[in-house]
């Protein structure tokens, strides 16, 4: 049984009403399944919610929100959200627009109104990478969080040193409402120990997306401690390294269920505690060039015609950091020009956080992107691609997360660049 404070017990007993009692019951039973003995106070400034889409078919969620609002429930902390599912800047067409706006995501406005009543931070607080400086939800080391969004949770735990379990949608809102979360798993020192030793023995820096995928599929929800990456990444968390770790973590979380990883000599806890973080009975997984190739070759191609010419390209799942966004614009621009083209060969969408997009307004990169026909959007590519109208469309991506959840075909960064800039094309 979990020890509750007097206030928590009173809520559970119904002193604040039946709805609050059900919220507390959910968190208490959730914690008890994992042996939590008490609640931990949420100390991060903001929450982060994963369910950002007003999809018609998740009506039970809107009914739940109505129940919360009508019971006078308000979140103790403001929260940010995952990306919006729609953006009129992203190429579509009249049929898709009709389906997207009138049917699939017809509840978007209703849902955002509900979120505003419960505690949405602001109208532009929609990004899976809420922890970017430009988005303003960046926890401090040691902060206790009530977040969902697998890529954000794994980043907050691993790179920022905050403490957050891999909460589900709705559970994370309940934690923000009550200001407490059950103390278990990644909130405890013991739960943050690594049960896997990963030895990276590749001849060059592996693609973050593929390395993360390989580790995720191997360790599932366990905590890996990765050796060998410092040889390529160095020992400083520079913007470029953080970008690599963002993409790496997202792949570990979507291809497996990793909520925390340690990178030897690099991430905060590995820097402080080193191999003390590894349990005595940890298993070992060695990743060399052959293993990277095996993992890439294992990805199914589910296009009806595997030789189809791509009709669209998404880069930025999770959302691109500023460093990454600027880098892609330069690389694509230069590639297009080198190959004697005026625009990319495939309509290409770069997705990033609203704050990042705002920060490059008026910069030369904005004009460069416009000149070669790049679309820069705050959309969630997963939400765009995840519908029957788009399933049959040959879309390419450099995101392992997008590959996992949609019919998009995965290519590594340099391959994507060659395809969209027409390298080798006659």
């Amino acid at each position, binding site marked *: 049984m979990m020890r509750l404070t007097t206030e928590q017990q009173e809520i559970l007993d119904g002193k604040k009403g039946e709805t609050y009692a059900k919220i507390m019951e959910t968190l208490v039973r959730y914690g008890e399944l994992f042996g939590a003995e008490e609640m931990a106070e949420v100390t991060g400034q903001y929450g982060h919610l*994963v369910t950002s889409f007003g999809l018609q078919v998740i009506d039970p969620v809107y009914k739940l929100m109505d129940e919360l609002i009508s019971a006078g429930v308000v979140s103790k902390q403001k929260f940010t959200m995952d990306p919006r599912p729609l953006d009129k800047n992203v190429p579509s067409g009249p049929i898709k627009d009709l389906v997207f706006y009138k049917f699939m995501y017809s509840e978007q406005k209703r849902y955002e109104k509900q979120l505003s009543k419960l505690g949405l931070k602001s109208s532009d607080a929609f990004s899976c990478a809420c922890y970017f400086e430009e988005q303003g939800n960046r926890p401090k080391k040691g902060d206790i969080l009530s977040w969902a969004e697998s890529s954000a949770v794994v980043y907050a735990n691993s790179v920022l040193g905050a403490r957050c379990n891999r909460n*589900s949608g709705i*559970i*994370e809102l309940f934690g923000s409402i009550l200001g407490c979360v059950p103390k278990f798993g990644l909130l405890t020192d013991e739960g943050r120990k690594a049960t896997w030793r990963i030895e990276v023995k590749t001849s060059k820096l592996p693609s973050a997306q593929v390395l993360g995928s390989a580790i995720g599929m191997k360790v599932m929800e366990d905590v890996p401690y990765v050796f060998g990456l410092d040889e390529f990444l160095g020992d400083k968390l520079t913007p470029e390294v953080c970008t690599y770790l963002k993409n790496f973590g997202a792949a570990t979380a979507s291809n497996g269920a990793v909520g925390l990883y340690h990178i030897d000599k690099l991430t905060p806890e590995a820097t402080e505690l080193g191999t003390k973080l590894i349990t005595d009975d940890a298993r070992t997984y060695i990743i060399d060039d052959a293993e990277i190739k095996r993992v890439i070759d294992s990805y199914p191609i589910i296009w009806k015609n595997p030789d189809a010419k791509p009709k669209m390209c998404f880069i930025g799942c999770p959302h691109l950091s500023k460093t990454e966004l600027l880098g892609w614009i330069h690389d694509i621009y230069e590639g297009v020009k080198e190959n004697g083209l005026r625009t990319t060969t495939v309509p290409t969408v770069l997705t990033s956080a609203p704050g990042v997009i705002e920060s490059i307004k008026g910069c030369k990169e904005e004009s460069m992107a416009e000149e070669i026909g790049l679309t820069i959007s705050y959309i969630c590519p997963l939400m765009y691609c995840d519908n029957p109208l788009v399933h049959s469309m040959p879309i390419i991506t450099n995101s392992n997360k997008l590959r*996992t959840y949609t019919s998009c075909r995965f290519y590594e960064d340099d391959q994507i660049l060659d395809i969209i800039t027409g390298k080798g094309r006659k």
Partner: protein
Amino acid sequence: MKEFKGRVLIPGECSAQALVSHGGFNTLASYQTSFLTGDKKATCSDQNNPDIYKKPMAGVALCLPQTIGSTTGGMILFTAADSGRQPACMLFSKPIDSIGAAGVLLADIWTDAKMPTIDSLGDEFLDYVKTGMNITVKEGGVVQITE
């Protein structure tokens, strides 16, 4: 008949045919297409899970090690339960993961659906059970399997 015993997370009894996922069950990837198409059978759309891809999930005894993938998973299971597309029961060979736990609890506390859930049934359970076998879930975490 073979019998296994695990930890009761959501009590209840039921009988259903087994649908077995040897790899992690990716809740979002499995349910997403059926949500969008309104498919009441909840045909699995996870291309990365050949064990259950294109097989109906509603009303089956879903046997799995754990859930994996997006943290929308719990919300997805809750929505499936509220709209009658949930498995008849969920049987985890390993201790339940946090996303799966959220899903079965949200379904239990916030919907009228009944979805008995048992975890820690062991690796032998998942090695033994095959898709299509008959499963009976009894009180006390007992799972009976007949061919």
